[in-house]
């Protein structure tokens, strides 16, 4: 019996079919969730991408719990204070890991090989994150919020942005902090990760400062499996290589 859901030739003209084809071409499952990585991905610096993602997960999770209790909850509840502390330290680790990741990618010139959009989405994610953290400080309803608002207003007013972005309007800052800016961060980080998966991890320069060409074979296969001896050397008994070998997906 014929599959009634099987595509027909005329379906290829559909926007949906075209969109699916574009997505499948850009992100085949082997690219989206690869199980191997180039052997040059062997440094602790590669770990900071995934640590940034993990920290962001905790920032969002703890933010959601704080949202459940409302903006004043953590001032009156010891549980709320602890959740707020989790939120604060998640943010601190998020920025620490992200900045190390950014510097690492800078020194790798990770924009090479049509990876410019990967770089740009990463930097813009960082910038939006700065705004998200800033509005978080303004939404605390305590002395820090007051002082930061009264100091920051001058710079923001000087740019003209103070006319529509009022750092002393608690309601406006809270809305930016818990909706607009997190949406921006998550969207940009999502796009960033997709770009990493699409383009892969940037290859090394060659030793004297050009691009490494490791002498791959001409022909269909561009992969070469490490021999057992090479694999053992690259991972077994070497923690750095072991961690690095797990981190290739987080360019």
């Amino acid at each position, binding site marked *: 019996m014929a599959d009634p859901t099987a595509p027909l030739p005329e379906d290829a003209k559909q926007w949906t079919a075209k969109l699916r084809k574009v997505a499948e071409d850009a992100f085949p499952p082997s690219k989206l969730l690869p199980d*191997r990585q180039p052997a*040059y991905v062997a440094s602790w610096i590669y770990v900071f991408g995934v640590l940034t993602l993990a920290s962001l997960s905790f920032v969002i999770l703890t933010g959601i719990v704080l949202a459940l209790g409302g903006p004043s909850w953590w001032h009156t509840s010891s549980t709320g204070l602890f959740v707020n*502390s989790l939120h604060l330290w998640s943010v601190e680790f998020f920025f620490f890991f992200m900045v190390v990741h950014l510097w690492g990618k800078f020194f790798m010139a990770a924009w090479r090989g049509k990876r410019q959009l990967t770089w740009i989405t990463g930097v813009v994610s960082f910038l939006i994150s700065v705004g998200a953290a800033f509005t978080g400080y303004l939404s605390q309803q305590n*002395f820090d919020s007051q002082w930061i608002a*009264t100091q920051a207003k001058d710079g923001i007013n000087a740019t003209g942005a103070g006319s529509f972005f009022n750092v*002393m309007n608690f309601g406006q800052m809270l809305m930016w902090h818990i909706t607009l800016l997190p949406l921006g961060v998550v969207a940009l980080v999502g796009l960033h990760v997709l770009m990493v998966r699409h383009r892969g991890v940037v290859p090394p320069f060659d030793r004297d400062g050009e691009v490494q060409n490791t002498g791959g074979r001409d022909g269909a296969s*561009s*992969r070469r499996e490490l021999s057992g001896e*090479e694999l053992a050397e690259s991972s077994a008994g070497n923690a750095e290589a072991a961690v690095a070998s797990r981190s290739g997906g987080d360019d």
Partner: protein
Amino acid sequence: MRRDHSGGSRSFKPDRDVEEFHGAYVPYDLAKEFIVALLVVGLLVVVFAFLFSSPDEAPVTIKSWSMNSPVGFAQTAITELDGTSATANYGPPYNSATPGATQSIGPLSPERWMGVHHPIDTSLDYVIGPLKTLPNRPALDRAIGRYLSAPASMRNAWDSAYEKAVASARFVGGAVVVRPGHYGPVAEMMSALTSMARSGALDGALLSNRQFYQTDYTKPLMFIADGSYLSNLAQARHLQGTQWGMMNETGNYPGQAWLWLYTFWYQVPPIKTSPNGDLEVWSIMMVLTALLVLLPFIPGLRSIPRLTGVYRLIWRRHYRSHI
């Protein structure tokens, strides 16, 4: 002419292009990596939250300010009435006060272009308006009426005399006491406003508008910031701009350390003392930010990673295995 991996014929640039990698691949488990990272970060966050908690110092209110520093409050309040406070002379987006108060770089003055969006008339909003809300105060009502109906020159004379006198005022018996002088109705108005502030009523009066629910604290915060009380508390907590305050927070916490470069420019002469310092710092930061975002396209800057050679450290294992 080398070709980039896309097969194009443009010249190969090592800071822009790569050749396709044909070397070895090794197994790795992305899902496992993410779960391990979650566990590690989760542990770190819980330990730090447990050990260090998070800062939460009580905010300053007009009540707490006027209770702790009644004379300081009265000294600020008279500047709001006579229009000499920082807020009264701020310019956009709060008012269109003193010409030249707005920041500019050459002919560029974005805040002037945007205009007034959060209007504050310090005399009406901070003094006369709140005083008019006090019930059953016929003497005060007469004082306000007298003040408002007096010629401007007379009001200025009363204001100036009281402003000088309150500089050496004392707080005795629950009232701000100034030496005898020709203050007209101003002394009574200031006394009433200070009492109102100390009762907590002024905090509410500055928030009131047509709606019941409030979220905009622009007016009370600007009033509080005009005084030295908030600033002195910040100074003691190392939060002033000259103390790299923009990136600090109360207590021994990291604060917004990622704002270090933004804060740095405020420590650098001549920006440090420039009347246009905020606009200058933001302009510098916007240019630097644009350079960072567009780095992959900027010849010279994009060569820094290759020229500094830090990549040799990052990929040292790779280079070692390809000798």
